[in-house]
Each structure stands twice: as C-alpha cells, then as structure tokens.
C-alpha cells in the first residue's frame, strides 16, 4: 500500500501554490510567482510519476488485475450512516494515468507560460489560478466519492471561469467566461440530480460501494433502481444519463459544446491545459469512472453516450473545416476528439475483449492530451509572434518559427492518425472497437477521421505555408520564436506525441483491470490511414499555395458552408432560449409579478386602509347631536344584537 501522505501532496502542492500566490503573489513574490508555481508543479509531477511507477509496476497489480486502492479516506460531511461525502484518494489505472497527464501537461504549461505570460500585469494571479485549476483537476481524478468528484468538478469549472476571464477587461472574455460557467453549470445540474438518484438507490456515495451495489446482479439496490421508473425509463438509466449530461457539459459534447470555442478567449496556455488536455476530458473520465454501472446496469445510457460522442465528433469536424480563428479550429478539433473518446466508451462493454473501447478511449485521452496540448502551445507561440488569431494574418511562418513548425507538424500528423505518431494508435483502437460493436458509429468515426486530417492540415498549411509572411502586423516586434522556455515544452511534448503511441496501453488500462492484449491490425488500418492521407492531400492542394480554390469550393457549397461557418446556429438557438424565453418569458414576468402583484397587494392593503380611513371620516362630523344619535343607535343596536342573536 502506498503512503497516502505523498499522494495527497500531489494535489496539495498546487493548492499551496494557489494560496501562496493568491494571498501574497501581488505583494511579495511578484515576478517570481511563476517560478514558485512551476517549482511546486515540478515536485507534484515528480511525485505523480513516482506514484505511477509504483502503482503500475509494484503494488498496483494483484493476481494480474489492477486493484482499486484507497490509501486515504476522510468523512468530510456525514449525512447518515451510509451516506457521506468523503474526501479520499483512489488509485486505479485511470486515476493514476490522469495524475500523470494532468501534472505533466500542467508542468509544461507552467513552463511555457513563464515566457508567454511574462510582463502581464496579473502575472502572479495567473499562476495562482493555474495552480488552483491543477489542484482541482488532481482532486477530481483521485476522487473516491461521487460527491467528491462533484466538488472538484465545480472547482475546475470555476478555475476555468477565472482563467477564461483572465483578461477581465475584454468584454468578449467576460462573456466567454460567463458562458462557459453557465453552460457547464447547467450540465452540472444534471450531474447533481444524477448523483441524487444514484445515491438514493444505491444508498451510498462511495464509488466502490456504489459500483459494486449497482452492478452486482440481484442486489436489492440494483433491483430497486431498475424496477422503479419515471416516464417509462428506469431510475438507473435516468441516473446514469443525468450524470452523463454533467460529463457532456464539461467535455463540450453536442449540444452543450457551445462554450468551448468561446473559451478560447482565455490565454493560450490555459486553453492548452484546460480546454484541450485535461478539464474537457473530465466528462470522459467521469463516464469511465462509472463505466461498470453504465455498461452493466444502464446499457441504454451507454448507447446515448456513444451516439452523442459520434455526433459531436462529426459535427465539430464539419465546423472546424470552416473556421478561420486558429484557436477555434483547435477547439472544435478538441471537441471532435473528445467525441471519439466518448463513443469509444459508448461502444465498449465491461470486461475482456469487448472492453476494447474503454482502453481505446483512455488511450486516446492520453495521446490526445499530448498532441493537443502541443498544438495549443504551438498556436500560442504563433499567436505570440503574429499577435493575431486569424489565419488570414498568418502564412509562411515555417522559417520564422522552425521549432514550432516541426512540433506543429508532428502534432498534426499525430491527430490525423498517420503512423507512427501516437494518434494513429489510439484512433485505430477506437475505430476497431467501433467496428466490432457498432458499424454506424464506425463510419461516422471514419469520416470524421478524414475531415480531421483535412482541417488540421488546412491549419498547418495556412499558418506555415500558403504565402510569405509579411511583417506588417509586428513590424515593431522582432522577438523571434522566444527562448527555451517556449521551445522546450514544445520539444518535450512533440517527443511525447511521437512516443506515447507505443505504450502498450491495454496492459495497464482496461475496463476490468486485467490485461487486455491490443495488437496492430495492419489490414484494418489501411482504410483509416488512407482516408487520413487523402484529407492531408486535399488540404495541401487547397492551402499550400495561396489560391482562390478554397473560396470557390466554399461558395459552391454555399448553404452547407454557411451553416457550418455559423456553427449550425446552435449559439443562436441558445441565445433565443435564454434571452427570449428565460429572460423575457420567465424572468421579466416574475420580476413584474413581484413588483406589481405581490408587492401591489401589500401596497393595496396599505392604500385601502388609508382610503377607508378617509371615507369614514364623516362619522366624526363635529356635530354633538349626531354624536348622540350614533350613541343611541349604538346602544339600541347593541341591545338588539345581544337579545335577538
């Protein structure tokens, strides 16, 4: 059993970084803040690598099956004997893998930002927020309790909010951060209710307990969850589906993806860390964490996961082909790749060969983290150089930014699924899993794969080839590629993007913990690879040289192109729902009702009293004889009332 203390240090070091930098950064550390944050992060990375090594190679495996270890658990909030929110640490293959991914990518981003964010006014705040995010994400991945994951889920949400809104004086950044937070919050609503449903039926919040109770055939809890239904759908399906909504929100799955492209308003390293490599895959991680429940008790939900993933993958790929903002293209590609991971999970089953999708999904998560972080950091380097996000302002940068160029190319090849880059392996596995389980999804995946290759290379050619770079944008600014702090992370990640594909992932991560043999299926790979190559060639034909071919094609596909360019008008639909329906049809009437009816009643009571008081003043007429009349009427009336009533 590993020592809980140093595992706990992994999230606690970034937390310490957050507290230090957040409280004292502006005053005391100032420009050293970055270094402090990076050093702490480095420690965390080393520890997590050590833990990963220990887990995978020393103590994690018992009888050939990777165990779920819980070295630490503390009852944080006790609701009843069984129900309690615990703060705990879980070690299992996926959490350990995620620990590595998160700390590693975070470290890279920390280093990269040292140069990239230099001179920012709120430099220390930036690092504080980065640390906060890293802490939350690490807390999320090691959660042992479904509520714990929810807690950190919210925390990553808020750190994402803070980082997107880092440039708080830009209205677009403010809007984007709000949007990101609110859309994910909406999704979290589903998550929360899902938790309530599952915890109610399972009687526990602990992951282990919950999974074992809801998957054990014939257990009372499972029976209750399956038999009780709402609107004809069983409770367990509801529960898992609702939880998946939470995951879909964080992972920007259709139709909750609208926040992700806007989130690119944040600093680019943030996009690399949060909106490409780590936080956005939390949804995938969540489904993976509860995978046994999905797979064994709620296959319907898993179907939904599969189709949502597939649709998102395709949709995002289509949109990505039309975007001109390089970060947005990357954002859509992220969405598309996460769609892959999702549908991979969706087509998986629990245990053995059928669990290939699960392994593939995790594998893709891992490789994607590498190459997508790399892509974003490269994009950052490019943006840093040209001071623009628009493709139109770029072109011909391969000479100005040689390292970036190579790194970007590697990443593109990787994402396009060209062997021997990492993306190839993971994507093949996913497609294979889909092929085995669900052909429809396989075809969607395949088409998406081709489009991925196309738009990535569209991006690549537009940035680095296309035309000669003219300096009119940055005539005053010839700082070149930037120092080692910029290039070293790129190089490391590029190496990672190449190497990580060769990891025998099935050995470590599988749906049931036992070893899953994954091989290289050359015959199967021909099709995806060739489609990828075709995509690259088309992109090269269209974008390598400056020409009017792209415009022609886009105008010939006028309707489709426009729709895709406008992201299928999903934003507009949301805007309609929120502005027109929620604000105008619910909020405004509620406010009106409150001011005029509820408040009106109170004022009405007050005014009526005044009016009555004014009306009856005539009784006090000032005529003493009338007083006597009232007197007599009163006396006789009273007597009559008492006698005859």
């Amino acid at each position, binding site marked *: 059993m590993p020592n809980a203390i140093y595992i706990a240090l992994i999230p606690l070091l970034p937390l310490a970084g957050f507290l230090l930098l957040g409280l004292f950064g502006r005053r005391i550390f100032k420009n050293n803040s970055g270094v402090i944050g990076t050093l702490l992060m480095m420690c965390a990375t080393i520890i997590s690598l050590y833990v990963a090594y220990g887990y995978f190679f020393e103590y994690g495996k018992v009888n050939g099956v990777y165990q779920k270890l819980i070295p630490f658990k503390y009852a944080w909030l006790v609701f009843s004997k069984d129900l309690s929110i615990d703060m705990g640490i879980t070690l299992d293959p996926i959490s350990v893998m995620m620990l590595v991914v998160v700390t590693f990518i975070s470290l890279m981003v920390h280093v990269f930002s040292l140069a990239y964010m230099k001179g920012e006014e709120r430099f220390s705040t930036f690092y504080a927020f980065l640390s906060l995010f890293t802490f939350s994400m690490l807390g999320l991945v090691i959660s042992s309790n479904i509520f714990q994951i*929810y807690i950190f889920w919210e925390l990553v949400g808020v750190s994402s909010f803070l980082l997107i809104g880092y440039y708080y004086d830009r209205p677009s950044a403010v809007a984007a951060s709000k949007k990101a937070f609110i859309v994910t919050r909406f999704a979290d609503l589903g998550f929360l209710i899902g938790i*309530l449903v599952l915890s109610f039926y399972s009687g526990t919040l602990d992951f282990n307990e919950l999974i074992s109770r809801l998957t054990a055939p014939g257990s009372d809890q499972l029976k209750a969850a399956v038999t009780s239904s709402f609107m004809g759908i069983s409770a367990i399906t509801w529960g898992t589906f609702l939880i998946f909504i939470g995951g879909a929100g964080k992972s920007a799955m259709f139709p909750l993806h609208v926040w992700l492209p806007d989130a690119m308003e944040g600093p680019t390293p943030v996009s690399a860390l949060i909106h490409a490599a780590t936080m956005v895959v939390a949804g995938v991680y969540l489904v993976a964490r509860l995978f046994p429940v999905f797979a064994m008790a709620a296959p319907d939900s898993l179907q939904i996961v599969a189709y949502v993933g597939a649709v998102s993958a395709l949709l995002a790929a289509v949109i990505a082909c039309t975007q001109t903002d390089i970060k947005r293209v990357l954002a859509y590609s992220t969405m598309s790749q996460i769609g892959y991971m999702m549908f991979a999970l969706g087509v998986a089953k629990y245990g053995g060969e059928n669990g290939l999708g699960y392994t593939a999904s995790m594998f893709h998560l891992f490789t994607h983290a590498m190459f997508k972080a790399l892509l974003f950091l490269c994009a950052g380097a490019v943006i840093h150089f040209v001071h623009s996000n628009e493709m139109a302002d770029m072109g011909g940068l391969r000479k100005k930014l040689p390292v970036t160029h190579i790194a970007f190319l590697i990443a593109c090849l990787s994402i396009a699924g060209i062997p021997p880059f990492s993306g190839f392996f993971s994507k093949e596995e996913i497609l294979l899993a889909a092929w085995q389980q669900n052909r429809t999804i396989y075809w969607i995946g395949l088409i998406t794969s081709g489009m991925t290759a196309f738009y990535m290379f569209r991006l690549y050619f537009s940035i680095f080839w296309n035309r000669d770079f003219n300096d009119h944008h940055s005539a005053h600014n010839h700082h070149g590629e930037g120092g080692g702090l910029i290039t070293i992370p790129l190089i490391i990640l590029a190496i990672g993007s190449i190497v990580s594909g060769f990891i025998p992932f099935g050995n470590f991560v599988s749906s049931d913990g036992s070893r899953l043999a994954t091989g290289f299926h050359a015959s199967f790979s021909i099709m995806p690879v060739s489609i990828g190559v075709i995509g690259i060639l088309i992109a090269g034909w269209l974008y390598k040289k400056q020409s009017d071919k792209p415009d022609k094609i886009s105008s010939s596909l006028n309707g489709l192109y426009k729709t895709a360019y406008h992201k299928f008008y999903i934003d507009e639909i949301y805007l309609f729902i929120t502005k027109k329906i929620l604000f105008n049809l619910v909020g405004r009437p509620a406010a009106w009702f409150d001011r005029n009816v509820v408040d009106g009643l109170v004022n009405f009571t007050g005014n009526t009293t005044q009016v009555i008081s004014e009306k009856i003043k005539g009784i006090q007429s000032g005529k003493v004889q009338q007083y006597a009349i009232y007197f007599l009427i009163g006396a006789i009336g009273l007597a009559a009332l008492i006698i005859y009533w």
Partner: protein
Amino acid sequence: MNLSVLLLVPTLTAIAILLARNANQSRWIAFAGSAIQFGLAFALLYAFSHERTNGNYEQMLFVQQYNWFPAWNISYHIGVDGIAVAMILLTAFIVIAGVLVSWNVIYRTKEFYFLLILLSAGAYGFFLSLDLFILFFFLEVAVIPKYLLIGIWGSGKKEYSANKLALMLMGGSALVLVGLLGMYFSSGHEKTFDVLRLAQLHIPIDVQRIFFPLLFIGFGVFTALFPFHTWVPDGHSSAPTAGSMFLAGISMKLGSYGCLRVATWLMPDAAKEYAPIVILLSAIAILYGAFATMMQKDLKYINAYSSVSHCGFILLGIGMLTKTAITGAVMQMVSHGLMTALFFAVIGMIYERTHTRNVSEMGGLMKVMPFISTIFFIAGFCSLGLPGFSGFVAEMTIFMGSWQNTGLFYRVATVAACMSIVVTAVYILRAIGQTVMGPIKNQDYLQLKDAKWNEKLAAIILILGIIAIGVAPFWLNDLVRPGAEIIMQRIVK
C-alpha cells in the same frame, strides 16, 4: 458557561454607547463589545463541544431558568443546543463585521451603533430562549431598530421601505403571537410557554392544524416566505450597509429558526400535514426569487431577491422533514447569513465609492479596487454554491435530505430547487461580469481607493467563517445534526 453573559454583554455595550462622549468612542465601544461577544461565541462553541465530548447529551446545555412572571408561568429560561450555538456564532460574526463596515457612519454615529447593538441583543436573546414568551419578546425587540436603521440612515425611498418592513414584520409577529397563545392554552392543565415542556406534550392535532399555519407564516414573513417576502427587496435596498447585513444575516434567520424550533418542533403532526404546502411555497420562492433576481439592475436588489431564493432553501429543508434536510436548513441559515452579509458589505463598499448601485453604470472595478472585487467574487461564488464555500455544503445537504423523500411531488420540488443553482449562476455572473469585470465605463472610477482596514477586517472575518464551513463542514454538521435529530424524533413519532 453562563449564557446570560451573552445577553449582558450586548446590553451593557448598548448602554455604554449611549454614555459615550463622541462618535469615535461609540465606535470603539461597539467594536470592543462585539469583539468580546465574538470571543464569547467561540467560548460557547468550545464549552458546548467540550460538554458533548464529555458525554453530556442533554438536549439543551447550560440551561438557566428563573421564574419571571409566575402568574403566567413565564420564565426566563435559556439554554442552547447545537443549532442555537450555530446561530449565535453566526450572529457574532455578522455583528462584528457590521460594526466594522459602519466605521464611516458619521451621521448620528452613537445612535447608529446603539441600534445595531440593540438589534444584536434581540437576536442573541431569541436564539437563546427556551421560553416562548421571551422568544417573542426578543423577536420584537429586533424589529424597531431595523425600522430606525433603515429610516434614518437608509437611502432611496427609505421611509417607505422602513414602514413596509416594520409593518410586515409586525404582522408576522402578530400571527406568531396568536400561534404562541394557542399553544400556551392547549398545553394542558398547567399552561406553559416552556419550549422543553411543550416539546414533550402532545398538542391535539386539531389545535395544531389551526396554529401551525399561523406560526409558520408568522415566522415565514421574517424569513421571506413566498408570498410574504416583499419587504425584503425594498428593505434591503434602502437599508444602510450594516442594516442590510443584519437584516439578511440575522433577522431573516430569526424567522427560519422560529419556523424550525417553534412551529415544526412543537407541532410535528401539523408540520407533517402542511409539509407539501411549505415545500410548494419554498420551491416557488427559490425559483421565482432566482428568476426575479435575473432582471434586477440594482446590486442590492439583486442580493435581496437572491436572499428570497436562498431563504427558500431553508424553508424547503424544513418542509422536507428529514434529518439531513433539516441539518441542511440550519447550515443554510448560517451559510446564507455569512454570505449575504459579505455580499451586502461589499455592495456597501462599492456604493460608498461609486455612489451608484446600478450594475450597468459600473464595470472594471477589478482594476481600481482589486481587494473589494475579490470579495465580490468570493461572495458571488459562495452565493452560487461553489464548493469550498459554505453555500455549497448547505445546499447539497438540503438536496441530499430532500431526495430522501420519495414521491413525485417531493422529487419535482427538489429538482426545481436544484435548477435554481443554474439561475443563480446566471445572475451572479451577470452581476460580477458587469461590475468588477469588463472595461471601466466611468473614467472617474480610476481615482477610487481600495478597501480600508476596517472594511478589510470585516470582509476577512466573514470570509473566514464562510471558508471554515465550506472547507471543513464536519464541525458544523456535528454541531447541528443532533439538534435536527431531536426535532426529527418528534416528527417520526
């Protein structure tokens, strides 16, 4: 620990303030008094936990009882359980913060502090009371200071708001009074106002049916029970900063505490019968308050309406009648008290500088006053139930507790309540986005200064309270849960 000290200190402080020679003296006296009280509250927490860990499981601890009006069987009977301790802590936090943020009050300073401390004395007494008569006494003690605070030091249409507040609260307490009398006269041969005695009696269900609504609505008016909440927006928006803090932080909690301690505990059968109505009203309040908040432009109105929504959670928890839900309700009382006090404090700070509370006129305050803006962020995050802050803990406890009730109606109500966390996020982020974020709209703001020491201290005290609950809720949970258990015992029976 002698609980009377908790009443004596504010009373003496109030008298000392009256004797103060100048404004500055009165400030420091108020601060010293509230600081002592703050310390005493912690001493109480310590003493209470000490007794409990030593195995003293009496329902109420540190009980004191003197016959006050033997003719009516009214006694000065005070004591605390975990719930009361939590509420007293809350009050202590808010009072000291309220005293600190009012440091700049220059108009009739002495009177201002006198009323503040008097109000706090009422609140302390209320939470300590174990006799319905003195409970009512303290409830009403707390009404008039609010009226004067708003009417004299308020802003906007202050007279109207002050009047509305005083009259509605008075109306509430009138209903409470009738309810209390009803209980008194149905308490058997030897009539009693004693809470502990009443808690052992079985009041006939017919009597409960009549008086439970009176009590619940009566206390509900204090805690913004829909549709009796309309004093809240006007009252809060017109009140001076400390007034709003006290109003939302303490005064509204008097009502919810009463709903729990008096209405629900003492009339469990009727509480069960009326639970659906309570739930319905509170679910409406939660959502409706949240949606109404969305449309507000005045920062104080935003927070006031959000208080309606948040206090709906308290009543929802009480109405759900499960141990966890009631625990959550109490936690929400504490949490909302601290959070809303912080919110009003920061709104006050902003208003003092920008002289506007209209969100659309502000923007980019982060640039000129980072400290205040950070507080604003924190208050907002707490309000929208972010983990790490108290609101999350309380709301989640309520949700967990509510979900224990099976039945579609309860489920729908709970889901509706859950939905408000999204709406809350919308309006909080709108407020944050328009005020502290974004570009600076008004160039005059560039000259504004950040928080002063007193404001910082006040904010930090409140934030510490919020975080202490948010990060380590177990102590509050352990404190409150046994109290909720006792209440539940009567309900289950």
